[in-house]
């Protein structure tokens, strides 16, 4: 099985594969932030910090314990989720943008901590050996993306997802309907950070070298851009946003240094013409249904 999958992966051009894997990881990270910001309406400015927790946890588990990669992914996700609960517990009990400030501060502190710990190899960063698994990494990325999308699609339409949307729309009214806003906000933050941790672990093993400074404020803003560009709260939108912004540097080429400037301009234009994002308000369910309907009743048109 592992050999067969490896052969399949080898059929694909390495450059294309690299882009695809990056898109996949981008999608996972952005979907996670979408739970926090798009669904529950809470602004996290430190998503990359939770990604770094997953990245370092994953790397250390592979290096020190040789942990099977599937288990490693889960552990990395849970570690990020654990820290998010520690941050979320004091800040999400208040309504307002305290989370934004707290995550911003947490990200900076975490970077300094990683830069000074022996286990993360201080400022030198960690070389990450290949994952312990016979299944190639791109397959893990693909499976993670599929699971992440499926889980989120189910979540959005559930009682849990509705409670998150209610909090986003009007926290006071949500509470008056019996929604425990604090609990749901912390859960959303934990789930989103779990996604970030898994994304970070995949990233670490794919890129094979991680350094605390790879996960700074700009990386968090990058992920936020993916979510906002595509459309807050829309799964197809987030997938599009992650794909566009992951591939953009490849196409922009000479403009690489001005990436942030270009994003800024694009976002301003977007705010003016499509304030809800490129695919804002487009739901995954409806999209699938539409395609399905077209396939099954071609004569109707």
């Amino acid at each position, binding site marked *: 099985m592992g050999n067969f999958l490896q052969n399949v992966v080898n059929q694909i051009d390495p450059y294309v594969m690299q882009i695809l894997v990056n898109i996949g990881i981008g999608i996972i990270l952005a979907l996670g932030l979408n739970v926090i910001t798009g669904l529950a309406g809470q602004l996290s400015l430190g998503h990359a910090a939770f990604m770094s927790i997953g990245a370092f946890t994953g790397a250390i588990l592979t290096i020190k314990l040789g942990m099977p990669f599937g288990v490693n992914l889960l552990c990395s996700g849970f570690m990020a989720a654990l820290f998010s609960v520690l941050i979320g517990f004091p800040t999400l009990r208040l309504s307002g943008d305290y989370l934004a400030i707290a995550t911003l501060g947490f990200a900076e502190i975490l970077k300094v901590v990683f830069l000074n710990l022996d286990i993360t190899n201080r400022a030198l960063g960690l070389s990450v050996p290949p994952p312990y698994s016979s299944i190639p990494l791109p397959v893990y990325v693909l499976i993670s993306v599929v699971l992440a999308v499926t889980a989120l699609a189910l979540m959005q339409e*559930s*009682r849990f997802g*509705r*409670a998150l*949307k*209610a909090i986003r*729309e*009007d926290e*006071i*009214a*949500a*509470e*008056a*309907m*019996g*929604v*425990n*806003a604090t609990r749901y906000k912390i859960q959303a933050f934990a789930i989103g950070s779990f996604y970030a941790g898994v994304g970070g672990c995949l990233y670490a093993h794919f890129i094979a070298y991680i350094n605390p400074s790879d996960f700074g404020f700009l990386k968090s803003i990058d992920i936020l851009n993916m979510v906002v560009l595509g459309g807050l709260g829309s799964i197809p939108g987030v997938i599009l946003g992650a794909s566009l912004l992951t591939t953009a540097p490849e196409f922009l080429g000479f403009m690489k240094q001005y990436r942030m400037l270009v994003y800024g301009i694009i976002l301003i234009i977007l705010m003016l013409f499509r304030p809800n994002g490129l695919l804002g308000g487009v739901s995954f369910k409806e999209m699938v249904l539409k395609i399905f309907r077209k396939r099954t009743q071609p004569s109707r048109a």
Partner: protein
Amino acid sequence: MTVLELDKVSIRFGGLVAVSQVSFNIHAGEILALIGPNGAGKTTIFNLIMGLYKLTDGKILFKNINISSRKPHQIAALGIGRTFQTIHLFNQLTVFDNVLIGAHTQGGRNMTGALLKWLPAIAKEEKDLHELAFRCLQMVGLEKKRDALAKNLPYGEQRRLEIARALALKPSLLLLDEPAAGMNPQETKELMELIHVIRNSGITILLVEHDMKFVMKISDRIVVLDYGAKIAEGVPEEIRTSPLVIQAYLGKVGAR
């Protein structure tokens, strides 16, 4: 039987005593109106009952449970539904989703069952919640608008949607804060019928309203507030003829 008991309830905002030593009871099955001039403290009392504000003094009992220090979501879950004076709908969500969220406390109970039964249990629960939400929409006559966004409804319908959403909570006590505000005479008449239907379904109602004709016609009893204090309590006829009440209202008008 007493559903809700306010016992010497007070709250101060800085130097302002917004509600001062107010006591009254709401009996099961009645429609009790809370009236008073602007700024008398009516909405503040709603927010105190719902746990949005902390009492400075006194206590509030719901079905003999002291709810004075509980959180809003806990109080809602005990069975108190409310609507807001300034509309608080989930604007970007559909009419139906608004009511489904109202039914939030009606779900999540059988989730602790066996893991094997988990998925079917969720599907069954969703079906139940959808049915409940649809019945509530029917009750206020908004079932045809179920897929519209809440923010796109006309004002009167938004007020009725707030009622449907509160009904989905299956409350035993319903608090309505100026439900007729901004409604035309026809809508007001329909609202009055709706409130009777709700009461006849066994739900006790506490309402705040400025439209005196409406209040006199619909309520079983009336409590009058002025400057945060209770100045009268009684059946509509007593209130209509009470010199204190007339003075409170006329005094305010005269001052302007």
